[in-house]
């Protein structure tokens, strides 16, 4: 195992730069590595099965050169980019993959991934979009199928005790990440947005205990920094899905603002709440992934009025805007994304009602488009100054 030497940020940077390097090491040691997409993959079950779960990221700094032969360009650019990365051999150590049903781009390309990659293990996790009682029951059956398929893969039983232990470890990971988020509340924040992205990305590439050690080391390092002086930079929050490149934070912070908070699927969406301890741990997992991972791909029916409904969907953003003293929100929505795209007017209006300004950007998950975004972000910051 790579040793933590107290320099958590440097290690996070290393894991960010050589993404998946630790999983590759573990594979060389004889462990099985399972790649997965999306915040909806119940990573706890993979941990319980003794596997090394690796959330796959794309490489927006590279153009897509291999994927277009197999996958249509109308598919979400993030999904295409990750698929391209796998085809290029960046994840050539995977024993298998889990593809949760997050959206059409994942559902309708399931065949394309499995047929083209021909990995030894493949599982499409049919996560429903609803969070009502029947959907939780359905999700339980889906999770049981998943457990069964992993038992077949490993040859070992994945019992409730193992799952409960994994849930505990991942909950601790969430707690630590929230502690780190709290260090962004100062003005300026103790940890920059660019550093934070590298920690988020580095942490998601590690087995849970190592991930927690990394976050702890970062916290230890960051709290020892001198309280910063405010420089008048605007405090920005980013909202979107898998924003896994530090180039975005770099662009925002390079324009003179601070990225102080996020609602993205490798960040706050993952750690806002913990999984309840339930007699059948799968019950807690089913409820968590359907009711507490706040993605627009889950249809929320709460509230008698439309106002109550939007509070249920976006209320956490209002809280964050208040707690992190957010001036402006960058809504970074992937092109061709129906679930996020259809929410733009509603979420924009909601955030504005909370007193923050909103910049909506359609994102093609490609760094080549950053100069264009930089101009828009610069104009936005000028506008809210």
């Amino acid at each position: 195992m790579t040793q933590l030497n107290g320099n958590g940020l440097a290690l996070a940077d290393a894991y960010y730069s050589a993404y998946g390097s630790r999983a590759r090491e573990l594979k060389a040691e004889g462990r099985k590595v399972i790649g997965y997409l999306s915040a909806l993959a119940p990573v706890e079950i993979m941990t319980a099965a003794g596997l090394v779960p690796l959330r796959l990221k794309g490489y927006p700094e590279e153009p897509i050169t291999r994927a277009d032969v197999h996958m249509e360009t109308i598919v979400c650019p993030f999904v295409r980019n990750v698929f391209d990365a796998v085809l290029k051999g960046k994840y050539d150590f995977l024993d298998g993959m889990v593809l949760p049903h997050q959206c059409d781009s994942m559902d309708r390309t399931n065949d394309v991934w499995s047929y083209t990659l021909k990995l030894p293990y493949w599982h499409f996790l049919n996560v429903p979009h609803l969070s009502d009682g029947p959907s939780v029951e359905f999700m339980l059956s889906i999770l049981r199928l998943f457990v069964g398929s992993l038992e077949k893969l490993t040859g070992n039983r994945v019992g409730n005790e193992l799952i409960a232990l994994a849930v505990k470890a991942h909950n601790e990971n969430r707690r630590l990440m929230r502690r780190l988020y709290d260090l962004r509340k100062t003005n300026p924040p103790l940890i920059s947005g660019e550093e934070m992205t590298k920690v988020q990305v580095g942490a998601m590439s590690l087995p849970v205990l190592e991930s927690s050690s990394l976050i702890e080391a970062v916290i230890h390092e960051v709290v020892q920094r001198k309280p910063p002086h405010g420089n008048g930079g605007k405090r920005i929050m980013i909202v979107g899905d898998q924003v896994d490149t530090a180039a975005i934070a770099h662009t925002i912070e390079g324009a003179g603002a601070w990225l102080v908070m996020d609602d993205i699927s490798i960040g706050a969406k993952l750690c806002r709440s913990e999984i309840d301890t339930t007699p059948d741990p799968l019950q807690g997992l089913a409820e968590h992934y359907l009711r507490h991972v706040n993605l627009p791909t889950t249809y929320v029916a709460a509230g008698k009025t439309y106002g109550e409904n939007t509070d249920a969907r976006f209320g956490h953003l209002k809280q964050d805007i208040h707690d992190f003293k957010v001036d402006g929100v960058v809504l970074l929505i992937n092109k061709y994304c129906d679930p996020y795209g259809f929410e733009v007017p509603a979420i924009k209006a909601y955030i504005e009602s909370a007193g923050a300004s909103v910049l909506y950007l359609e994102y093609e998950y490609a760094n080549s488009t950053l100069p264009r975004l930089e101009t828009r972000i610069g104009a936005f910051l000028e506008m809210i100054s």
Partner: protein
Amino acid sequence: MEEKKPRALATQSAAKIPKFVRSNLSATLKAREEGKKVAYAFIMDGHDEIMRAMDIVPAWGESFSGLCAAKRDAEQYLQKAESENFSRSLCTYATCNLGFDILREEMGGETPPGAPWGGMGRPDMIIGSAQQLCDPRFKWPQATRHYLPDVPVFVGGMYYPPWDPQTDRREVEKFYVKYITEELRECVRFCEKVTGKKMDWDRLEAAVDLADRTWDLFDETYALRKARPTPMDTGDAMNTMVPITFNLGTQEAYDFYKELNAELREKVEKKEGVAEEEKYRLVWGAGLPSWFALGDFQYFNGKGAVFPAETTYHVAQPIDRLDLPNTSDPLEHIAWRLIRYYTHWYDKARQKPGSAPLVERIMEYVDDYKCDGVVFHSAFSCRSWHAGIILQAEVLRKVYGHIPILIMEGDIVDISSYNEADTHNRIDAFIETLEAYKNSRN
């Protein structure tokens, strides 16, 4: 706005379809004075018979947007939606409708002037569906409610087991059926609440039975297209799908296919075909058509190419083939029918490593309808039908060797993505490939 000359039709029955569409639209406009409730509804989500049994008037957004596109009058609505920050890359069925809704709200509920065929009525409820068919089915209702906040929304869960060559579908179908049945029951409760009326379960049972018989009749009728020359092609099928897609569970739909059946039988007997000389037979492999360019089917016909079969809107299978378990619960019956519509292809696909259900279906049509090639349409704003086409083409080539395949590109509603000259050039080149392929086989 440019008026496009209507496409010539091969069957008299297809010529009656505009009446169906008009009637569906006007029902939504007259509903209030008739004391009925209007529901925004979505095709293929299993709610048809529930709405019909409860006298709820469905307002089909996809149909209305298709109509706007066919009339080449969608742009103003697309632009309106775009001005509200709905990206142009989203489902244009949805954004066209949203643009229409936003305009109507801005006009105090009045239908925007010049709306095709009088527009669509304001809904009393929205019945969406979170299912594998497409994301807009549950996000579009939510987006609409942003502009129509007083309108209650129900979204039900509707899943089918994903294709997995390692798994026997029978191991998982039951819990899927249980889930769908419970969600359909939730839908009934929602409809009862909004309409203030109780479900008449006998009436529902009758509607389900009528829908089953319509499925059978539809399939039997479409199978008549196997004849050479084919009496009807996909160009007409994009119209004759209206009754089964938007009027399922009604006597009108059943009667329509009776008439179509009789007409096709007569044409087969007289050997009346779609093209003057039928040279090439093609399967429309996947993809919604460009509703503003249905004339392209005629362009194919003019080259002697006909489409006796298509997967798009072939939304029914013979009930016997689905081997549905017996149940006295009409909702459970709907659930089984919906699931088996997808999964009954799985067994065939499992027998051939490397195959997939969607490709099995196309291959069945290639073989049974004696086709020479496959045409797909890739619509940029819709991932649901249009992602995975490249793979389907790849598998087809593996099975059939050099079978000619054309992937056309465009959209369903947004004409800005379409170039007629370029499309026709690509069709011309494809016809040459077809000719060479046929010669090589002879």
